[in-house]
Structures are given as structure tokens and as C-alpha cells.
């Protein structure tokens, strides 16, 4: 079975790319299509996860949805792919459904599992903003699957790899990119495995130091609840929950967040949830694996010290 995996590369192979290739490898023999000027060592690293053929479209450094759609559709035709795999990130959201519509293929948005053992191709996705799971069946011969970051673990599966340039006329994009305001360094929230989050219980933006200290000790990304983003204590891109970012890290630590149903919806895909709150009746404890009834101002620094002690004992 021929599988086409679309990845975006920078100067290193992202976890999302490894997941997409791993997913593709479970379905068949993988051809990767990518673009830009990623160095050879990054390209060949994809072979470690099962990419047999790697096609690179060199003369393209900007993601324009129509151009990327054309790139994916043309390479899928060339490799006679039955599956087209993308990551459900910002680019994937813009391009995946577009590819599916162009070739009239069924599209699964945000798959969180490998296919079920059933007659027809069926995979799970999150729906109702994380409050439920749907089993989506795809009826078309070609299937476009966008997988949610952190849903499957990358698995090393080394194969012989060939790298070649992909050359086709892709047409011109009609969106002109004028400027980029970068987010800064660090792991973006949807890809983060460890997340430290805080809410109104922190009482003010000037108190976020203890949250950032814990995040730094853990190597975690910071997040926040909706009210905190709405009143401008924290940037909007940190807001997790139903109307913010939905995340599924391995560890989610929430301090001073009571756990409104909309907040829990965005984080209940997390493997382990730790809740720190002064109110023992806070609804978040019902969704937690570990709970600490206490003041975030005392508990967070203690937890940071404990993490630091643990890290130094590991070396």
C-alpha cells in the first residue's frame, strides 16, 4: 500500500513529522513529500522512522495553501498513494481538507489512533471539543488523514532511504506573506509533552514567575486558562480550553484553575493531570490524577525545588 506523508521541515525533524511518518509506516510503504531547504541530515533522519522515498520541492520557502495542495496532490498521483497523511497543525488545517476536496477523498480531521480492526477504514478523532470521541469511517478509495500531535508515539523503524528533488509546475500562490511575528523559542503548545498552566488563582500577571520557574525546571511549555488570557495577563496563544488550544501532553499541571467544563474539554486528552487548588471542591479535581489542596504560591515553589532535586539526582 502506497502512503504519502507530507511534512514541513525546519533545521530539525519535529516530533509531529516523526509521528506522521510513524503513522504512515504502519499503513504501508512511505514516500515523504516536503519543501524548502532543509539540510540533508534532517532529510535522511526521516529514514530512521520508515521513510523509503523522500521528495523535496526545493524552490519554495513559503507555505501558500493552493501551492502546497497542488504539491501534495501531484506527488500523491505520482506515487499512486492510497493514504495521504498530514499533521493536524496550522498548515495541516489549511491544506488537508483542501487536498481531500480536490481529489474527492474522505478526510479525517485530527485522528488520534491507528485504524480500528474493522471491514472499512475507521479511526478515532476527538469531537465536542474533547468531551467525546468519534469513530470516523472513510468510504473513498483514497483517504486523507490529518493526525493530532501527541496522539501516537514516534517509533524508530530504519529503512533504506532515497532522497530526490521533486519538480513540477505548482502554479502561483495568491496569498502574499508580508511579515511574521515569531512566537519565540520553546516548544509550541500543541506539540509540548509537559505543560504547566495557571489561572486566576495566581491573582495577577506579576506573579507568573513561579509558574515559569516550574516550567523551566521541567522543560515544560506554559499555558493559561481563558479568563487570564481575556484580561490580558497572558498572551492568547497560551489559552488552552474549548475556545483556545486543545492539547494532549503527557503531563498537565494546573495551578489556580478551578476546572470549568470548557477548560477541561481542552486538556482531558492529557495522559496525567496534576491539579493544585486551595478549594478542595474545585471541579478540576474530578478530572485529575494527582491533586494538591493548597496555595499555588506555596506549592509551586516547593514542586520546583522537588523537580530540581530529582533532576540533579538523575545525573
Amino acid at each position, binding site marked *: 500500500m502506497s502512503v504519502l506523508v507530507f511534512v514541513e521541515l525546519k533545521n530539525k525533524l519535529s516530533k509531529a513529522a516523526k509521528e506522521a511518518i510513524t503513522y504512515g509506516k504502519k499503513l504501508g510503504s512511505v514516500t515523504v513529500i516536503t519543501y524548502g531547504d532543509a539540510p540533508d541530515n534532517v532529510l535522511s533522519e526521516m529514514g530512521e522512522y520508515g521513510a523509503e522515498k523522500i521528495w523535496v520541492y526545493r524552490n519554495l520557502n513559503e*507555505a*501558500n*495553501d493552493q501551492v502546497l*495542495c497542488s504539491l501534495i496532490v501531484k506527488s500523491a498521483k505520482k506515487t499512486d498513494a492510497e493514504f495521504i497523511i498530514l499533521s493536524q*497543525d*496550522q498548515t495541516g*488545517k489549511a*491544506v488537508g*481538507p*483542501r487536498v*481531500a*476536496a480536490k481529489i*474527492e477523498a*474522505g*478526510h*479525517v*480531521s*485530527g485522528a488520534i489512533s491507528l485504524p480500528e480492526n474493522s471491514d472499512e477504514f*475507521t479511526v478515532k478523532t*476527538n*469531537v*465536542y471539543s474533547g*468531551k*467525546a*470521541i*468519534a*469513530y*470516523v*469511517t472513510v*468510504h473513498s478509495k483514497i483517504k486523507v488523514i490529518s493526525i493530532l500531535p501527541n496522539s501516537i508515539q514516534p517509533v524508530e523503524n530504519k529503512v533504506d532511504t532515497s532522497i530526490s528533488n521533486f519538480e513540477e509546475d505548482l502554479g502561483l500562490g495568491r*496569498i*502574499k*506573506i*508580508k*511579515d*511574521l511575528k*515569531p512566537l519565540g523559542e520553546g516548544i*509550541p503548545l500543541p506539540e509540548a*509533552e*509537559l505543560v504547566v498552566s495557571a489561572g486566576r488563582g495566581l491573582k495577577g500577571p506579576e506573579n507568573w514567575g513561579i509558574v515559569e520557574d516550574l516550567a523551566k525546571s521541567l522543560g515544560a511549555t506554559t499555558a493559561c486558562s481563558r479568563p487570564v488570557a481575556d484580561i490580558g495577563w497572558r498572551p492568547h496563544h497560551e489559552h488552552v480550553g474549548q475556545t483556545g488550544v*486543545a492539547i494532549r501532553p*503527557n*503531563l498537565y499541571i494546573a495551578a489556580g484553575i478551578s476546572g470549568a*467544563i*470548557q477548560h477541561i474539554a481542552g486538556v482531558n486528552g492529557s495522559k*496525567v493531570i496534576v*491539579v493544585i487548588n486551595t478549594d478542595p471542591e474545585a471541579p478540576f479535581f474530578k478530572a*485529575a*490524577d*494527582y491533586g*494538591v*489542596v*493548597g496555595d499555588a504560591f*506555596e*506549592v509551586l515553589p516547593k*514542586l520546583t*525545588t*522537588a523537580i530540581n*532535586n*530529582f533532576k540533579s539526582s538523575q545525573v
Partner: protein
Amino acid sequence: MKILVCISKVPDTTSKINFVDNGKKFDENGVQYVVNPYDEWYALVRALELVETQGGSVSTITVGTSADDPTIRKALAIGANDAVRIDAEPVDSFFVSKQIANYALKENFDIVMTGKETINYNGAQIGAMVSELLDMPFVSLASKLDVVGNVATLERDVQAGIEVVEVEFPFVVSASKGMAEQRIPNMRGIMAARTKPLNIIPADDQKPLTSVLKFELPSPKTGCKYLDPESMDELVELLHNESKVI
């Protein structure tokens, strides 16, 4: 300026989600329906702001049954000029996109807007599919939209940050948080909405490409293990040895 806003009905964000018929059907018992927040708060309101300052009209389109009419009237009460409902169950995203695109092809809209996703299916598919079917560029996840003449400047989320882009009419855009502020309809709007046109159009034939076999609820947590605020070393030990996440 002629703008089409795609409107979907969804359960209110505080709804308890349940299923009946062995997980085949959404349990509507006690559920309040609202206009999908991304469609209403951001896409529709920004569309209204643009035509209020620059002239033009805002139409809404919904693929659904008569059960959708109250939420469509809500969009009219907020200020849309007229509404179209394609009379069909919205069976899958391609089916819905095809209906919207078929209608839009006949009407020459300058901008087609959607919310970035619905809060029931979270597919984020309609905008991208409609743009492909209309052969238009698609600006996804936009948090800002300004128009001068027939050129729009937008800000949108990309992996690396916030991108500022420029695009000429016509185009499709999906709205995320920040594009506008929620508007509460006033009594005059609500009264006016009763007489605004809601055109019901039969659906075109299109076989769905996907279907939902069943729904289930995520497995509940087995219970919270409480730790004393003084025993953070123990918590770290549990995270390392018991749940193996650090």
C-alpha cells in the same frame, strides 16, 4: 462588498455531552443550541463591521434542517441582511462544503467566512474545502481582517507565530479568536430578524465520503490521588515511577 458567512448550530459550551442508541446518536435531551461561537463572535461580527463602515451586504448560509432556523434567526438578529438554508442533514464535511460552494458559485461573493472550527465536530474542514471547490485562496485561523478597496490584510496563526498576509478578493477566511468582539442582539434586531429573508433551498446530490460509526465518552479518571502540599518530593516520585511522565 458582498460577504457570505457560514453558520452552524452547536450545543452550548456548558452542555453535558451524552449519546443514545449505543453511541450512534447525540443525546439532545436538555441541550441548548447556539450559533457556533467562532462563526458568530468572530466571523459574523467582523463581516458586519466591514459592511457597516464600507457598505455592502452580509448573507449567512447553513446546511441543515428546520431545527436550525432559531439559530439562523439569531444571526439575523445580530445583523446579517439575509440567510440561506440548504435543506439537508449535514452528513459530512465534503457534503456540506459542496452545498455551500455550489450556492456561492452563483452569487459572486467577495469574501466567504467561516469560524475556525465548530465546537461539536472540531473538524476545521469547511473553509478549506469550500475554497478548493471555489478555486479561491484560503486564509486559515485569522485573528485580524482589514479591507481597503478589494485587498484584505489579515493576521493568521502559523506554526512559527503570527503571519501578516495580503490577499485580493475573492477569498475564503476562517476566523479565530480576536477578529471581533461578541455582540448581543438588541430588541430591534430581534424584531427585525423575524421578517428578514430566510431562503430555503433544496440540496444538490452528493454522496458523503465519511460517516461516524459511533461516538463514545472518554474513559473517566479512576480517581484523584491527593498529596500533602509538604510532600512534593513524593509527587515527583509518583510522576517518575508510577505514571512515568517525567
